[in-house]
């Protein structure tokens, strides 16, 4: 247990390096996204949410390809991708883009 913690502390992508704190800052997007899921969809920005979806997809790839490979950054952007796609779907639904096929026959 101690050995694992020590390894983490001294890791080349650990808390003594910028490779760690940059992604920590990026968790702000995830947190903000999660908070915003509880707000009405009229508050969702189509521009910002669509950009976030592309941005996090690109940075998932970036985190994988960069040396050293940055799993923490990968996890951050995978999470952001999920929450931003969810927000985008909430926005689309509120706009009527995800309409049901046979609305009259529902329940």
């Amino acid at each position, binding site marked *: 247990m101690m050995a694992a913690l020590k390894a983490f502390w001294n890791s080349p992508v650990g808390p003594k390096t910028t490779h760690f704190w940059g992604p920590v800052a990026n968790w702000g*997007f995830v947190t903000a996204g999660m908070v915003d899921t509880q707000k009405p969809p009229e*508050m969702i920005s189509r521009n910002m949410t669509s950009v976030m979806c592309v941005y996090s997809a*690109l940075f998932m790839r970036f985190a994988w390809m960069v040396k050293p490979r940055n799993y923490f950054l990968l996890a951050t952007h995978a999470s952001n991708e999920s929450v931003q796609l969810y927000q985008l779907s909430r926005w689309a639904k509120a706009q009527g883009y995800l309409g049901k096929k046979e609305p009259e026959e529902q329940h």
Partner: protein
Amino acid sequence: MAASKIQALWNHPAGPKTIHFWAPTFKWGISIANVADFSKPPEKISYPQQVAVACTGLIWSRYSTVITPKNWNLFSVNVAMAGTGLYQLARKTRHDYFSEVQEVPAKER
């Protein structure tokens, strides 16, 4: 000579054939989206989202100057993010806390 310089850039390990180029380049989209949203009514601005944009921008601006080599492209995109985020926050706080003063006398009647 110019052709080989362009070729060198094209084939660069962090050049336009790689994710090392496109991911940071696309980050400009966040600032562009924010600028497009300057025309939105302040009621629609999200405090958590803009705080995240501003803080990420500020932290990454700092870090892009302490990494080796210094990455001015990364620096500039994050300065822009911090700037647009702070401006959106200013717009919303001004609307929420400094423009209601006019409405109060009307309500008291």
